[in-house]
């Protein structure tokens, strides 16, 4: 048995696969525009209620076909708890936490991010179809964590 040769073949195949997988991820990011949350601003969490735009959470239209959702996660609810947006519009979520770390997982979409006190989480998404999506806090945030949810209604 020529161990050295098998070793080379096995390791080359392995390394090749890893490179292939990484290329697919690069394509998803650059070619398909699937991004992760990044830098979108910081704030002082003690001053949250008086820091725009978080002084008035809610949904507003910023341009034709373009909406902004300002969202606050807090123990143990989302404000606003029910979000209505039209199908086909571009929706920009700007979200943060009022107390501990919370999660933002919108069921049935790829939207999945953390809400961290002091950091602004920005997510952009276009809902193509009408329907309801369950919004779940998926980061442990205290004894009422499992009670923390909301919904997005696409109309």
């Amino acid at each position, binding site marked *: 048995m020529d161990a050295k040769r098998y070793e080379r073949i096995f*390791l080359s195949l392995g390394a090749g696969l890893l490179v292939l997988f*990484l290329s697919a991820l690069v394509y998803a990011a650059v070619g398909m525009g699937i991004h992760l949350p990044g830098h979108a601003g910081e704030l*002082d969490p003690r001053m949250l209620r008086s820091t725009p735009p978080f002084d008035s959470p809610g949904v507003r239209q910023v341009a034709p076909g373009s909406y902004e959702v300002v969202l606050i996660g807090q123990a143990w609810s989302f404000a606003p708890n029910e979000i209505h947006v039209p199908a086909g519009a571009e929706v920009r979520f700007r979200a943060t936490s009022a107390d501990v770390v919370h999660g933002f997982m919108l069921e049935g979409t790829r939207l999945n991010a953390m*809400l961290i006190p002091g950091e602004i989480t920005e997510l952009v998404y276009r809902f193509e179809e009408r329907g309801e999506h369950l919004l779940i806090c*998926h980061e442990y945030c205290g004894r009422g964590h499992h009670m923390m949810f909301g919904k997005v209604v696409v109309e």
Partner: protein
Amino acid sequence: MSSAVVHDPRGFALPESQRAIIRWTIYLGFIALAVGVVNGLGQALNYAGIDILRFFPGMRTYYQGLTVHGVFNALIFTFSFSNGFLLLTTARGLGRKCNDTLLMAMLATLVLGGLLASFAMFTGRASVLFTFYPPLQAHWTYYLGLVLAVVSTWITSATQLVMLRAWRRENPGARVPLLAFLSIATYVMWDIASAGIAVEVVFFLLPWSLGLVSGVDPLFSRTLFWFTGHPIVYFWLLPIYVSWYAMVPKQAGGKLLSDTYARVVFLMFILLSIPVGFHHQFTDPGISNQWKFAHAVLTFAVFFPSLATAFSVMYALEIGARRRGGTGLAAWFLKVPWNDPSLSTQILAMFAFMLGGITGLMNASFNMNQVVHNTAFIPGHFHMTVGTAVALSAMGIAYWLVPYLTNRKLWSERIAVVQGWLYFVGVLIFARGMISGGLMGMPRRTLIVAAPYHKPDWNLAAALSGVGGTLMFVAAMMCFFVLAMTALFGEKTEPGDLPLAETIEGPPATGWTVSLDRLGYSVAAVLLLIALAYGPFLLHHFPPKLQSPGYTFF
């Protein structure tokens, strides 16, 4: 051919007083595993819609039980097992005893740390899970307890390095025996990796929980946590790799392919384990996509030494099986000595680890991580890695280690063999449940039985998690029973030795491989890589803006 042996060939046994400390360190690990596993059963059944946690003494909430499960299984168990096991292998590899004071200090800090953290957890003062993300704030005893547990690993490392220095003085120019090299390299990686959590807790969380500072920076703290939080998985894993490289070949009747190969793999872990932490923070705000991608690439790179390990271990198993009459392309596999519980259990752990590794690569997949982040997929994944590759292998190692440390025979080989299979089947069912549930949006770390948004789609996944978790629990209890019976009533035997493999290609006495033994080069390289991978983030966030007050929502 004796030059190809991985350890001091003259044979060596620690004095009884030191064996006793190693023995109790290992026992402490398995006691911690047992406490954690009992709580684990509660978690698994919760997913299946059955709430047994309220019957547990002192457990007020699911999240309190989950904290105990994480701390006892992922920290106290792994630290105890690694400290005890790798001190023994270092001593055996170098043929030297440990420093008595350091050895005693190791066990004392571990016990004290465990007790302090237990006090905080069992009195409901620290239901913050084992990741303790601020600004959830635990009692200071929790943070101090965890620090002391980490200090015990540093003392272990110091004990090893003291032994290595003395050995080098007596053996100038000689190659460090492989068994000792792998054991010491594991701790050198961890010494650097643990700096993140040490800084987070000692400089920020501990003073904050004592009221000495008014706030913490949540993102900065998370980043320090994950600086340690990913490499800790290699700190869990590498002691098992020591067994897979240096012992499993012997147990399977085979040999280790190459001494140099094993050393290079461990050096790759020193180099690549640490600068990968952002892959746990892909969905965090405040960290740019470029740096997240850089960490994703490095995470893919650290997958490579595990691929190399798979090749080397399978090769050793094949040599052994063919010597025992195995033939064919794959049929030789049946000739592996499956009736040896220590070996069969570790091979099953390897199979689980293949699935664990693949799912880990999915987690590390940058933008694709959004599909699985913080869903039940993640515990599905890591119960096949730390929960099986590490825990089940540790049980397998214990099947020779406890007999070795007590000079007794294993109480029942048959129950031990069955135990390994039951655990393996259990984790496959459990992970199948959690992974499919996660892909359907079932969150992790959630009292799902009481969640008002519970979806019927999750029922099958949740039931499988409950069934698999119960099997794992029963199998773990069987293991503890066999180990306890061995220690108490096992048949007395003559003192034995560790199962130590020989290599086909031993360590060359000259040439470039000699410099592999100088760990300083790898340490310098990893510090540089860390500076590159974390530098820009740290520069932006340092000094941290101390702003979030603490919350005790539990």
